[in-house]
């Protein structure tokens, strides 16, 4: 691929990505609030997205089931700490310590 084509590609992807990011931030700024049904549905985006970002790191399926025991164990430890403390720092610390313990000591 020559240099000019590659630059065109980078700019095209950059522009498209910006439009995706700006889409609703722009629209809602222009028109005011979203219809109640839509904003009600959007309240469920955080739990759905957070879980979709988290779960495949511990268990995933792509024709075969993948379970990383050290990551799964660390994830369970972190989830328990998150449940009892609702503290971000404690959750990360517990998860990383559990990961290193399982990976290097067990």
């Amino acid at each position: 691929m020559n240099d000019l084509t590659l630059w065109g590609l980078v700019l095209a992807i950059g522009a498209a990505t910006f439009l995706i990011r700006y889409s609703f931030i722009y629209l809602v700024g222009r028109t005011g609030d979203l219809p109640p049904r839509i904003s009600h549905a959007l309240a469920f985006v955080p739990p759905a997205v957070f879980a979709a970002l988290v779960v495949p790191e511990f268990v995933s399926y792509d024709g075969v089931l993948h379970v990383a025991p050290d990551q799964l164990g660390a994830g369970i430890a972190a989830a328990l700490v998150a449940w009892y403390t609702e503290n971000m720092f404690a959750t990360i610390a517990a998860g990383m310590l559990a990961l290193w313990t399982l990976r290097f000591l067990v």
Partner: protein
Amino acid sequence: MNAPDPTEFRRGARAVLPLIPAIAGFGLVVGVAAGNAGFSLAQAVGLSVFVFAGASQLATIELVDAGAPLAVVVLTAVVINLRMMMYSASIAGYFDDIAERWRAGMAYLLTDQAYALSISHYGDDPPSDPRGYYLGVALPLWIVWQITTVVGLLAGASIPEKWGVTFAVPLVFLALLVPAMKDRPSTLAAGVGGSVAALGAGLPLNLGLLLGAVLGVTAALTIGGGEA
């Protein structure tokens, strides 16, 4: 409109701190990949500055390296980044009093981490100026990303993978997930979203994540009792 609230900015910057080593590790990987695929320094910087989205940058680099048709490369990057439209819609209501030029800049900085930390911080009681916290999270991510992709390309080095520093990223999302599952429909959204994403891990284009998000929300609205 004057400067963003500095107290909120510091709060956001503190919240993003544990993610910095993970993002740095990811940035190094992307920089190394760009160098191996024959990107010049300027092109790698261009990709990081104009796109600023790790997974789609990595996919772009791999597809360019494999000689894929241009349309396929663009389409792949767009589909990988489509989840950000949900973030844009979900966070837009907090940004609607902010001046246009700020909103455009804040949209440019929208990432998984900036969205996730900010939306959890705002909750039902957003600060009077939502720009401070958001920028406190998003700007350090941007700076670290730009530096580490360059370092990765120049040095070709990376942090030993077995330290698992990138594991901090799912842990942050996990810390946000637990309090977000606050009632039956939101728990169902998480259960369906996580299961679908895990089952869809083999799908191309990061579609598992997008499908998980869409089906999780749909489940909450239809069978979760979360209808308006």
